[in-house]
Structures are given as C-alpha cells and as structure tokens.
C-alpha cells in the first residue's frame, strides 16, 4: 500500500496536450502586440535618446563631464556596472543551477531569465568601456602581440580578470540562451503560416529536426555549458568583488566581499526575474505555465537570500567594531550608519533585509501586486547597496583635505537612464519575437506532471 502526499502543485495547469503547449506559447510570437507595447517602446526610445546624448558628450568632452574626481574616482558608472551585472546573474543562476540540480520547475521561467541576463550583461559591459576615458583604445586590455614592447597585460589585476570574465559570461549566457531556443524556433518554423515567418525562423532554427542524434548532443552540450557556467557565475561576481577587496580602502578591504557580492547578485537577479515573470504572466495570460507555485518558489528563495544579505550587513558592522580598526570603524559608523550617507545605508538595509521578510507570509507571497512592488524595492535596495559600497568608502579618504560629497551630473544620470532604456527595449523585443517560455522543456515536464498528480498511471517510469 502506498500513500502519496501532495507536496507540490502541478508544474503546468489546465491538463495541456503537447500541441496546446506549442500553440499557447507561439501565439504572441511575431504578432502585432497591444498598445502597451508601443507605449513601452516609445518610453524606452526616449530613454535611449537621452543615453545616446550622454554618451556623445562623454566621448567628445571626456569623463570630465562626470562628477567623479580624485577622491570619488568610481561614481555612478561603477555603481551601475555592478548593479547590472548583478541583475544579469539571475538567468544563469536560474537555468544553470536549477538545470544541474534537475529542478523541473525552472522550465517555465528559464527562457525569460536568460533573455534578461543577456540584456543586463550588455548594459553592464558598457560601463567599464566608457570608464576607460578613451574607449576607442579598449582593445589595449586584451593580451595580444603589439608594437608597444610587446607590453603584455597585468595578469595579477582583478580589472583584467573582470574584462575576461565578463566577455566569457556574455558569450556563454548568449549562447546558452540561443541554444535553448533552437528547437523552439524549429517548432515556430513548422507551424508558421506565412512565408516570411517560415523563412525567418528556418534561418534561426539552424536546420533543427528533432532527431535522436540531435537531441543527445544537444542535451550533452546544455549540461557541459551549464556545468562550466555555474563556475563562471560564482567567479564573475567574486572577481567583481576583488576589484574592491584587493584594495586597502576601508569598507572594501574585507574577505566577506566575494560571497557577499555573489549572493547579492543572485538576490537582485531573482527579484528582476520575479518582476518580469509577473508582467509576462499577466500581459500574456500565461497563468497555466507561470503558476502561483512558480512565483511562490521565487519568493521563498528571495526571503532566504534576504536573510543572508542581512547577515552580511550585520557582519560588516560587527567586524568594524570587533576588529578595532579605527578607519574601518570611522567609515562604517561615521559615514554609513550615520553621517552624509545615512539615508543610502538605511534605504539599503530596509529594502534588502527588512521588507523582503514580508514574504514569510503566504498571503503576501500570493498577492502578486505586493510581490511585484517588493521585487522592485529589492532592486532599488541593491542599487543603494552599490552606492553605499562605492561612494561612502571613497568620499572619506585617508587625507581629510580631499573629503568630498559626491553627486552625479546630468550626463552620468543620462547614461544610466539610457541603459534602462536599452534593457527595456531588449525585453520588449524579446516579448515580441521569441517564445517567452521554453516550449520543448515545458513539454518534457508534462508527463512528469501527469504522473505526479495522478492524471495518468505511471508505466515504465521513463520519459
């Protein structure tokens, strides 16, 4: 006699058949979207124009058009770089960690998370480039035989590691995302009714037919990329943190930084995934695929990571006191908890460590309006965290005569707004031209779904 308890709800609701899954998910692809899409694209374009203007000034005038100075050498640009790269961690965290752990609930969410990753990493990559001052000479950072000696690059520098790690991350996340879409593009190709659509998706599907010889290699490639990208996810943000931690600046010179940055990145990324999934679910009525259970799982992960973030903040405070280092103590207690930047510190603490605790309540986890607002608050809090780390430490250097208060210029704000426009435009294009949910992956969990929830009797147990 066996007893089965219903621990988890079904992954896909509505007792779907395979062809229904294809039809439902393909329906919005390449079709004329609603007015909201054009309105969103218009706003994103305005933001892009502002960003393009700011970049034009940055290129022609130089970084003197920013308010960074000898003391606060890294201002909004590095805050935004770290913020975007953090958001870009969710796609990989979702797809790859959950793929390696064989978590079937990832199937409805991973596609959007990966798309978001690629867009966010593109936004992030812009900032170190323009921060070089002469961006047209950016290739100097690559180790290639050159006529300057050849002067090779410094392999000991975290800034060089960063360049390689971000390039690798962009390549892997984009190819992982594209690889996942190939069978789905083939489905669109084979169901297309217009000639143009058929031609476009034929090219995009790379000649996919769904044969066993393709599937076996496809899955192996997915696992290999997933396995190595999991290492990369951890190393990219650890490397970003060593940009700070290998210095001797109070508030930066700490061994806590690598795990603190990696967890923070996954935190903001998951929050952005929640924002996007709630939007996709409600706009396209994908309630059967992105169920309450999916969003509940994300909320539970967020509340857990929020506790880690809170612990990290308190560890910083504790170590500043316990180490007895007067510079560290002065910075943390005189220039973060209190002082000119107290607002940013407390905004960070409340947004990241306190407000997400509301997710302990099942009612709040299931109220999607509140969940949506909390997901936005987390991303705001994570932005404040980066502000807190970068500006507070730099604004009070060892030489009091150089102390300054930092504010961004119109141009710095413009670059940030421009990247938000770029991200929004990329996401809107994704909504319109690409299947937002991984069709073949959802199909592969249907059987599992049916067996687990008694819709059919298990037979061989293999599928």
């Amino acid at each position, binding site marked *: 006699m066996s007893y089965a308890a219903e621990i988890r709800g079904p992954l896909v609701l509505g007792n779907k058949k*395979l*062809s229904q899954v*294809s039809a439902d998910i393909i329906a919005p692809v390449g079709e004329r979207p609603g007015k909201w899409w054009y309105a969103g694209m218009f706003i994103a374009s305005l933001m892009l124009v502002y960003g393009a203007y700011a970049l034009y000034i940055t290129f022609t005038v130089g970084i003197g058009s920013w308010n960074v100075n000898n003391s606060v050498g890294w201002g909004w640009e590095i805050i935004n770089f770290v913020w975007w790269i953090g958001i870009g961690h969710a796609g990989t965290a979702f797809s790859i960690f959950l793929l390696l752990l064989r978590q079937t609930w990832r199937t409805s969410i991973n596609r959007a998370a990966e798309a978001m990753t690629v867009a966010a990493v593109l936004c992030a990559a812009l900032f170190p480039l323009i921060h070089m001052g002469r961006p047209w000479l950016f290739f100097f950072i690559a*180790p290639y035989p050159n006529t300057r000696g*050849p002067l*090779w690059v*410094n*392999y*000991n520098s975290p800034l*060089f*590691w960063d360049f*390689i*790690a971000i*390039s*690798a991350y962009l*390549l*892997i996340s984009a*190819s992982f995302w594209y*690889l996942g879409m*190939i*069978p789905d593009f*083939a*489905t669109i*190709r*084979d*169901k297309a009714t217009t000639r143009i659509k058929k031609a476009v998706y*034929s*090219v995009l*599907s*790379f*000649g*996919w*037919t*769904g*044969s*066993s*010889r*393709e*599937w*076996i*290699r*496809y*899955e*192996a*490639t997915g696992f*290999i*990329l997933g396995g*190595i*990208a999991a*290492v*990369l996810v951890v*190393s990219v943000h650890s*490397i970003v943190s060593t940009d700070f931690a290998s210095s001797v600046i109070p508030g930066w010179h700490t061994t806590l930084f690598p795990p603190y940055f990696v967890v923070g990145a996954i935190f903001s990324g998951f929050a952005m995934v929640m924002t996007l999934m709630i939007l996709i679910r409600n706009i396209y009525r994908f309630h059967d695929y992105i169920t309450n259970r999916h969003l509940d799982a994300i909320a539970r992960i967020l509340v857990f990571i929020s506790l880690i973030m809170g612990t990290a903040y308190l560890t910083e405070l504790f170590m500043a006191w316990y180490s007895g280092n007067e510079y560290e103590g002065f910075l943390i207690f005189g220039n973060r908890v209190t002082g000119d930047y107290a607002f940013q510190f407390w905004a960070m603490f409340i947004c990241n460590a306190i407000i997400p605790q509301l997710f302990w309540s099942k009612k709040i986890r299931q109220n999607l309006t509140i969940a949506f607002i909390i997901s936005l608050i987390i991303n705001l809090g994570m932005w404040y965290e980066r502000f807190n780390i970068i500006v507070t430490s730099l604004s009070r250097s060892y030489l009091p005569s150089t102390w300054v208060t930092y504010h961004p210029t119109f141009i710095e704000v413009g670059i940030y707004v421009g990247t938000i426009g770029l991200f929004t435009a990329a996401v809107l294009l994704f909504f319109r031209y690409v299947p937002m949910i991984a069709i*073949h992956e959802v*199909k*592969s969990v249907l059987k599992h779904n049916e067996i687990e929830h008694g819709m059919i009797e298990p*037979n*061989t147990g*293999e*599928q």
Partner: protein
Amino acid sequence: MDALCRLLAENLEPAEIYTPYPVHGALRALKRRSKLSWAAWFYGFFGGIAILAFLYYTAVIDWPLNYGGKPFNAFPSFIIITLVLIILVVTILTLLTFSLRAKIFPFKKAEILDERATDDKFIIVFDAGHVNRDQLYASLREAEAEEIIEK
C-alpha cells in the same frame, strides 16, 4: 516508449526517431551516446596547459615586468585568469563540436520528414531495405501507430 521497446524487442531497429522533446528512455533504448563531455574535458585539460604556457611565456620570458615585487611567474594569482580562460575555451570549442557533430549550423536547410515532429508527434523511421516489411507493418499496427507513411 512502449511502442519503441516493443519494436526493438522484435529486432526492428529504427533508422532514426524524431520527437518534440528529448525522450530519455528512448535515447537510452536506442543506445544513443554522446562523447561531447569527453571532448569538453579534453579541451579543458589541454586548453589549461596552453593558457598557463602562454602566461608563462608572456610574463616571464618575453617581457617580464615587476608588479609590486611579485615573482614574474606569480602562479597563485594566475589561477583565476586561467580558470576563466579555460571556461571560455571549453565553451567555444564545445559549441563548435556540437555544431559539427549534430550538424546544426546557421543557414542549414532542415530535412523535414513531417512538420508535426516538432509539435506533438513522435516519429519512428525505418529503412525499407533493412527490415521485413510485413513484419514491420504488423508490429506497427500492434503498437497502435497513428499513421504509417511510406516515402
């Protein structure tokens, strides 16, 4: 799955199967294996040696520079960059190998047997020259095949 196992038990070896999603049981039953993970391991191992050799050549032999008193061959601080470059090399070469072996590449024209294979149909293909036609038809009907098409 049942149909495939029954056909295999009767020694009717399919030339190929087409499915809308990876059916792991079927891939196992057909003894499909991929050596891509070995290839990736090979790329990583030899790629790693090549990268360390490159770092050593450029930082020690070709143009040594003193960075804060560190030895020219500052091996521990080369580890991170080696790791990241290995990941980069493995990714690029694995993707190329996948493309070559699975014959999936840009602008390839798909040889589509039936357009429903990427939607909701599971297709088992037999080579007419390699199987007994009557036995195959009988077995396919017994296995409740929805359609039998000869091409």
